[in-house]
């Protein structure tokens, strides 16, 4: 019987695609890294051919609990996260009730601890009820047991420029960051799909790139003016990339994320009106995908974040306009990144470690995560087999409660073999350990 919590010796893993070494885990820490370590009493995991990455950190996850346990719970969502190679996730605030008080964020944080698959870092709402009118008690959430550092009205844009300015300023007191869902509301009333050739043909209301870019440009200027930290959620257009590149060149405190689906999928997939491809921000054009990949490669976009957005079947089995926005993504993220970024030669595994672990951990202020796989660090490790034969995605087999994966039927390379959270194996041989 495997003792998942005991000592482990990971034999012959390639650290972030580099040197092949053994890794010993003990007492929640990486006890030693080096060639030819002796097993002693530790259980041995043969990692020949596997890449060892620091445990992945997701800045953008919808766990749906409390309120929408029909779509996902903290338990099922974090199990899915572990299977995807994650050791920490940020739970978005658009729950029911909204995570806009210390009470709700502490509840989510505790549920995460009880589940034990990953560290759950609740995101606090910026405004009361995501209403965009009045600041939520950001300080109370920061001081709570959940120690919230990332605040977002995700799903809604903090559209009021004055409120956005105040939020950016206010969270400086506790080293917080505002993660903005950049969407100019007036320019996107009733919007259904990227405004372009496909939407025009399908007769779906357009979601113009300018509606995202205008908010990002405004927020970058506000971040500069206030000296505050802005994080841009799910960047989806080539124009947004240009604005963020410019803001970073000024030395402003701006960071950004891109989702796996925006790195791979395009708006022409909406041609059959299947709402599994309906998402906010919408799928864009091949030119946007190219720009996003290049930006992630050169670091303009800091990290990959899943925007894992589970929905029950009936929310997607509808006409396009009536269907919910969002896609699941935790269990496919690393494989999509391999296909879109690594197999294309844009980044190497060290780059993956940086964009999916180190940088998101830094942006989210997640202590202990995102550290290089080296002796003395907390033992958050993902073992990944990039040579695993491409296999078609089957949402029915996912640990997530929901099945709305846009990658269903797509052959994706690679396989998450094992995940360790603080030295405990949450995933072994591609399966959760409990």
């Amino acid at each position: 019987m495997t003792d998942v919590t005991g000592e482990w010796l990971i034999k012959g893993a390639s650290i972030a695609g580099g040197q092949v070494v053994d890794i010993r885990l003990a007492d929640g820490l990486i006890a030693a890294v080096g060639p030819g370590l002796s097993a002693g009493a530790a259980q041995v995991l043969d990692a020949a051919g596997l890449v060892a990455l620091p445990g992945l950190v997701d800045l953008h996850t919808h766990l749906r609990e409390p309120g929408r346990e029909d779509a996902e719970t903290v338990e099922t969502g974090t199990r899915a996260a572990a299977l995807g190679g994650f050791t920490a996730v940020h739970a978005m605030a658009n729950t029911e009730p909204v995570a806009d008080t210390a009470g709700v964020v502490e509840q989510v944080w505790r549920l995460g601890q009880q589940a034990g698959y990953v560290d759950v870092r609740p995101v606090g709402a910026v405004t009361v009820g995501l209403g965009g009118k009045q600041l939520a008690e950001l300080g109370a959430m920061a001081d709570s047991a959940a120690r919230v550092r990332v605040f977002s009205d995700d799903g809604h844009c903090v559209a009021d420029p004055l409120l956005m300015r105040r939020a950016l300023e206010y969270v400086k007191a506790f080293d917080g960051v505002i993660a903005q869902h950049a969407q100019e509301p007036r320019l996107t009333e009733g919007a259904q799909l990227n405004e372009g050739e496909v939407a025009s043909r399908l007769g779906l209301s357009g979601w113009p790139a300018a509606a995202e870019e205008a908010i990002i440009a405004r927020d970058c200027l506000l971040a500069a003016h206030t000296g505050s930290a802005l994080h841009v959620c799910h960047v989806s257009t080539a124009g947004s990339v240009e604005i963020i590149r410019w803001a970073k060149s000024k030395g402003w405190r701006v960071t950004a994320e891109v989702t796996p689906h925006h790195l791979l999928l395009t708006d022409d997939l909406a041609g059959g009106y299947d709402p599994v491809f309906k998402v906010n921000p919408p799928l864009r054009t091949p030119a946007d995908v190219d720009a996003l990949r290049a930006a992630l490669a050169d670091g303009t976009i800091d990290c990959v974040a899943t925007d894992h957005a589970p929905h029950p079947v009936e929310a997607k089995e509808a006409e396009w306009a009536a269907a919910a926005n969002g896609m699941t993504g935790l269990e496919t993220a690393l494989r999509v990144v391999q296909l879109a970024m690594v197999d294309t030669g844009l980044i190497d595994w060290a780059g993956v470690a940086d964009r999916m672990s180190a940088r998101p951990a830094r942006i989210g202020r997640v202590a202990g995560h995102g550290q290089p796989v080296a002796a003395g660090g907390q033992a958050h490790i993902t073992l990944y087999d990039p040579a695993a034969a491409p296999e078609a995605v089957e949402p029915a087999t996912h640990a997530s409660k929901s099945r709305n994966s846009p990658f269903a039927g797509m052959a994706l390379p690679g396989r998450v073999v094992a995940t360790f959270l603080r030295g405990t194996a949450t995933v072994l041989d591609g399966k959760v350990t409990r």
Partner: protein
Amino acid sequence: MKRHLISAADLSREEAVLVLDTAEELASVAGRPIRKLPTLRGRTVVNLFYEDSTRTRTSFEAAAKRLSADVINFSAKGSSVAKGESLKDTALTLEAMGTDAIVVRHSASGAPHRLAGWVTGSVINAGDGTHEHPTQALLDAFTIRQRLGAAGGYSTSQPGPAGHSAVKGHNADLRGTGLDGVRVTIVGDILHSRVARSNVLLLSTLGAEVTLVAPPTLIPYAVASWPCKISYDLGAELGQSDVVMMLRVQHERMTAAYFPSIREYRRRYGLDADRMALLPEHAIVMHPGPMNRGVEIAAEVADSPRSSIVAQVANGVTVRMAVLYLLLGGAEETASEREALL
């Protein structure tokens, strides 16, 4: 013919001409004392209308009844995911009742696509959101062929520019022909018009040269790939139009800042008697209805001999008969096989 008619793009030129020719044959039935054919006896056609549209629904109903089909009108107005039965459950319900065809009108673009994935019968799009309305385009094409062909308005023997040079004889000669070289100008709220989208696709498939005219705010964002020209100047286009098709403009577009006022819209994009005088002598005026008299079309234009608006309505029934006949005809064999087993 295919199983469904969801987009005008589903039709090849040959298929589109077949629909028009079949409609031509069926038109003769309308002239008989007993206007019924036994063709679809025992078949069930459901009119599933999520939006009010008395004219389209009654047109389909008349078409199905003239082919002796059983017709069920299923008015689902007001239904929504939040308030009532989902589209899928309605589809499964109709499927369980044994329907051969569902004629669907829905406010959401793409609803007929979804429906087609859930039922085994044929799905006919009777207008979906701001996407398409293919039977309207077919009846428009039929009307153009009939009106211009009868007037000798264009050459049917070979593709070429429209004009008076090719003198044609009678309607019967039109069978097998498309609309090669016919210059069609569609005017109005293109952005929100399912009629415009279907007409651009179908008329160009049939060889017509389509020009869309509207204020820039009412032209879809990305039309570069569409098989048509774009113009913002109605007066400049009328002199080279064999057909001008006026679309209904809704008052609520004004409040959404698509144009400043109805008065200004009428001045720049309305078809009045003065503008009508710019049209070539043989040119016809069309409107899919319902009209806003005094807005996009002046009363003297709507009631002029050039107007084909009443003919469009009459042709709507025969063209829809043709569509039902061709879509359901293909399933006949299966039905007789089923009977043989019983």
